[in-house]
């Protein structure tokens, strides 16, 4: 059986493919995949999914390995082996708010896609906040008055800037990571060892 690798669709996917091809793996069928969600190469079977779903497919053993952002792992804490960082997909988690915003004296409202990370962050600080879950375009929330601030990932900071927001505090750093199913890593160790090694050593 070919190793099954789950990839996060979108930005991480492109960065992974260029990294993977730099390791001399054939990425041609992956680049030309069109809208297909499953692609087989000579060596691997790939599936494409959203980040949280990548962790689910790996946890349930549908995929042996997965490439997913560290932010997703921190938020959802899936029961998988979280092997090592990959040299792309770098981002920071930050609290941001409108330029010149004065925080209210009462309990703040924070909007985020990452409700669990947000809760842990403020819990550790000992500060009570109300958290509103959003699915995307979180930058809108402070501008439209839904929340006092947001917790979100920041890569270059351009989106924040263009929407008139500034970072008030950065607290976690992430990159893409390689994860593995807990039993597949051992049971299919002979099939997986080579690609794991190359993914790790490629960055040294």
């Amino acid at each position: 059986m070919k190793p099954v690798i789950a990839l996060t669709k979108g930005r991480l996917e492109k960065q992974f493919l260029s990294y993977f091809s730099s390791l001399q793996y054939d990425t041609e069928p992956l680049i030309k995949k069109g809208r297909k969600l499953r692609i087989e190469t000579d060596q691997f079977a790939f599936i494409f999914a959203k980040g949280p779903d990548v962790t689910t497919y790996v946890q349930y053993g549908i995929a042996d390995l997965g490439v997913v952002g560290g932010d997703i792992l921190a938020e959802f804490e899936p029961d998988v082996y979280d092997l090592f960082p990959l040299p792309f997909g770098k981002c920071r988690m930050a609290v941001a708010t409108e330029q010149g915003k004065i925080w209210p004296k009462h309990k703040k409202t924070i909007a985020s896609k990452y409700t669990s990370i947000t809760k842990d962050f403020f819990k550790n600080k000992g500060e009570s906040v109300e958290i509103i879950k959003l699915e995307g375009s979180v930058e809108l929330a402070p501008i439209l008055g839904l929340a006092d601030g947001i917790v979100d990932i920041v890569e270059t900071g351009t989106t924040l800037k263009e929407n008139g927001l500034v970072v008030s505090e950065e607290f976690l750093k992430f990159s893409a990571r390689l994860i593995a199913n807990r039993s597949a890593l051992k049971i299919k160790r002979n099939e997986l060892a080579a690609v794991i090694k190359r993914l790790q050593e490629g960055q040294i």
Partner: protein
Amino acid sequence: MNRLFLPAGSQDQVGDRLNNKAKLNETFRRVVRGRDFQAIETPVVEYAQTFTNPHVGMNLSKLLKWFDRDGEIEVLRSDWTTAIARALMNQNAAQLKWFYQGSVFRNDTSGIESRQAGIEIIRTDPLLGEMESLLTAVAYLKEIDVRNYIIELGHTGLFDYLIKSLELNQETEEQLRLALYDKKQDAIYQIINKREHNEIAQDLVELTKAFGGKEVLVRYGLRWQDRPELVAILNQLQQLVAVLEQIGVPEVIVDLGRVKELPYYSGTMFRGYLKPSGKTCFSGGRYDKLYAQFNEDITAIGLAFDIDVLTEVLKPEPVKPRICLVACPQTHLKAELMRKDFPNGQVDIRYQIPATGLYDQVIQIADEVKE
């Protein structure tokens, strides 16, 4: 709410699946009683502290709980081993081997209820207990005709030994344990100060990769040859591997980087994986420390089978012919007596001729009587 809808994970069980479960439990009882284990069952409802006290360390948030009239927290049984340790304090100390069958309840597992069958061995020579646990597992798997599986061995002592000189506080040790649990190599370097303890950090990172066949034991035997405490553990695992191979276990692996998942584990840990699914069909290990809460300094070891996982892979019983005897109130007794003529069939009695295809054979008795 629609009255037919069940909570997530809950399900009715019917037919083959239920027959499989009964067969698994019957076979388990037969195998372990044949090895002189004695049955024990603890109640489904206990005080939370049985499971949450510091010696056991289960997380209260994962237990199914409520307050009793006196304001004490009661829970559904969340772990057999812990409950049995408590129960055995009031049992005859001369009985060393016990077995149990039944459900545990936790809200972090899919479906809340999971069905287990397991064994506990206390107050024996350590090696004897380990051999007997593993050989009982092998005997049971053979008896239920599960042939494609892997047994994995690990030991809590390797991690404990390697971190000893770091003199970590409880919180940092827990972070490090979790890093090993997730085989998260970079986290190890973040926790351990690289400049001061580079060698230990490297040892631990190596440990995350130290799984595989018995050749791993040889490799680490060489690596650790000047550390007799570690070599002693490797030799002990080697001894178990050899016995398991001799008795015909299809594949034995070791994971030297495996760390305990509950604080009371202390020593050898084992786990059975089914192939090809990779599901865990049994797990267990040594937990002498569990009895320290009762001021008992004894050995204790055991393992539990996951009956739900095994149910999925057990081959269904061969199909028996279904026979219908069509009778009437006057001939019902005659039909009842005819059952003995079909010792290998499933015999039903009806008063009306059934629709075709429901039974393999339909015999009408009513007609014979009229004549």
